[in-house]
């Protein structure tokens, strides 16, 4: 049955690729004809399966974990196709498994959406979990924030080895597991990280009483200090943004748990220094006359942390807000972000350009131009001044920006 599934899956993959189709169909078909496919393939992996979930930072954190483990000599299977549904994992397996069923990996490191992580755990056994945060997402996808925390609790319960939890997130730190381990922040850094509840109402900083396997102790520019199992290590990060640096602490904790060998901690941190951000997570592009940093903002907490990291008067800013299905139809969340660190936004664009402009107007922030047409907006924004630029963008707008830039062959 396994071989038949692989054959059919690969066949559909070839056909749909010839027709220029997407990556989900082969996964969908195999999921239907052989529901135990994922379980059969992944349960054979000698070092098991690790699942990474949470609202923000999954893609970059998964990339960090995969690169760190690869450097340790492990053959890592990961779903870097961007489809973090069960069927996306199946499609990724089909691409990497031989027709005879040979799947040459030691460990799977999988990025899964909260709701799909639960479905995945029902389809296949998992060994490790890294749970990053529960933040107000576009709430129309799951209903309510407490529900999302319940989903992650189910993922934690399914992992039979280590579960790495963010002790600074009030909802994640409450999650119970057989073998919990925590990552956290020093008291000094805690003040720089608004929790999701702090976005609503400033509250006192609470220092967690949970012992952390990994603590991000200091962060100054790109220089970070992590304490792993009580020992301090320095890293000069290529990754941008304080939230990426913090999620890296979670990645280190997971990798340290998987390696289970303290002598490897130093080389884990060394590898971390050279890991780069994923597209739209701080990548710098040259467009027209300008160097432009693309910053993905999917929800208020990501937006808030991004503004905290990147508001800087020597930069010009553009914000692009779409409300397509993958972004979430609801744009209310823009009102939960504090934009006051920005003194001016030069360009506002996207389907919901006017919603964004309205938000800025009520914060008394100067708006340069409002242009709903994204291509025109990007052009106007990047022409003329050579000042460095930053674009905050929602998910589908980020994809559209990528398309516009590659179409102009200036990428």
């Amino acid at each position, binding site marked *: 049955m396994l071989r038949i599934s692989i054959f059919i899956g690969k066949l559909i993959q070839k056909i749909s690729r010839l027709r220029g189709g997407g990556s989900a169909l082969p996964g969908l078909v195999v999921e239907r004809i052989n529901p135990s496919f994922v379980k059969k393939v992944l349960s054979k992996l000698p070092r098991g399966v690790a699942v990474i979930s949470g609202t923000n930072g999954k893609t970059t954190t998964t990339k960090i974990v995969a690169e760190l483990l690869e450097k340790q000599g492990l053959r890592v299977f990961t779903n870097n196709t961007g489809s973090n549904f069960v069927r996306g994992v199946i499609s990724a397996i089909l691409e990497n498994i031989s027709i005879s069923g040979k799947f040459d990996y030691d460990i799977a490191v999988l990025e899964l959406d909260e709701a799909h992580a639960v479905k995945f755990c029902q389809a296949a056994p998992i060994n490790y979990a890294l749970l990053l945060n529960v933040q*107000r997402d576009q*709430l*129309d996808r799951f*209903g*309510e*924030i*407490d529900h999302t925390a319940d989903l992650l609790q189910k993922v934690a319960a399914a992992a039979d080895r280590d579960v790495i939890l963010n002790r600074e997130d009030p909802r994640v730190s409450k999650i119970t597991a057989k073998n919990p381990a925590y990552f956290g922040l020093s008291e000094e850094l805690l003040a720089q990280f608004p929790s999701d509840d702090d976005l*609503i*109402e400033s509250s006192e900083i609470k220092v967690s009483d949970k012992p952390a396997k990994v603590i991000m102790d200091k962060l100054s520019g790109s220089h970070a200090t992590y304490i792993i199992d009580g020992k301090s290590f320095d890293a000069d990060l290529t990754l941008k943004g304080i939230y990426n640096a913090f999620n890296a602490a979670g990645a280190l904790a997971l990798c340290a748990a998987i390696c289970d060998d303290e002598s490897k901690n130093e080389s884990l941190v060394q590898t971390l220094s050279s890991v780069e951000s994923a597209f739209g997570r701080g990548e710098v592009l040259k467009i027209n006359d300008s160097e432009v940093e693309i910053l993905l903002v999917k929800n208020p907490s990501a937006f808030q942390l991004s503004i905290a990291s990147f508001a800087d008067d020597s930069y010009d800013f553009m914000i692009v807000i779409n*409300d397509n299905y993958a972004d979430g*139809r*609801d*744009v*209310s*969340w*823009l*009102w*939960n972000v504090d934009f006051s660190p920005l003194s001016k936004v030069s360009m506002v664009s996207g*389907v*919901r*350009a*006017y*919603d964004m*402009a*309205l*938000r800025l*107007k*009520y*914060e*008394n922030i100067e708006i340069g131009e*409002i242009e709903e047409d994204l291509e025109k907006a990007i052009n106007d924004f990047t022409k003329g001044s050579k000042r460095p630029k930053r674009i905050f963008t929602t998910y589908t707008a980020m994809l559209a920006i990528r398309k516009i830039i590659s179409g102009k062959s200036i990428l």
Partner: protein
Amino acid sequence: MIINILHLYPKNMNLYGDHGNMLALKRRLEWRGYEVNVIHHDPGDELPEDIDIIFGGGGQDSGQTVVEDDLKIIAPKLKEFIENGTPTLVICGLYQLFGNKFVTYEGHEIEGAHILDISTTGGEVRLIGNVLIDTPDFGEVVGYENHSGLTYLGDGVKPLGTVITGDGNNGKDKTEGVIYKNCIGTYLHGPILPKNPKITDFLISKAIEKKTGKAEALKELDDTIELKAHEVSSKRPR
């Protein structure tokens, strides 16, 4: 002139950018030269005497239970304010709790504040998406709904408007929200006020009228961005 705005349960009822409503009230008062004083009311606090506008938002279920007990205590005084014409806006969760009762889907009955003659029962599915309604007082109103409670109006109140797209109060009778004296209850997040400046200005002008004893026209503001955002929202898919 100082306008006192009471913000009910800002810590517990804080979903969907409802705080943007506070900002809309505050700025549109400031832009017209008024001073604004925001008073937060959290469970256990005492209600002040001098209130010009009341606002309360929606919350997740865990926020709602903490609020229920406190609301029982302040309900008589809140009712007095609203009976006396204090302009008020309550959204979603607090809209439901301002009514007579809320019967959960499991059949558990929660006593309301009996301020608005409405009753709510928990529904099986969530009603989620963009909403457009037609109102006699404010024209077309846009917003975003996400609720499982189904609200039905009693005889003593009239709906805020009629649903054009979306579900509104209960998905059946085409009504959305309620208006009673100067109190508006609604399921519309968005937040509702920034993109529907006519409602914001209604609350403001009623507050000033009540304070000064005479009705006068508000100073005009440039609402180009507000109206454009309203127009875009009204055309987006559910």
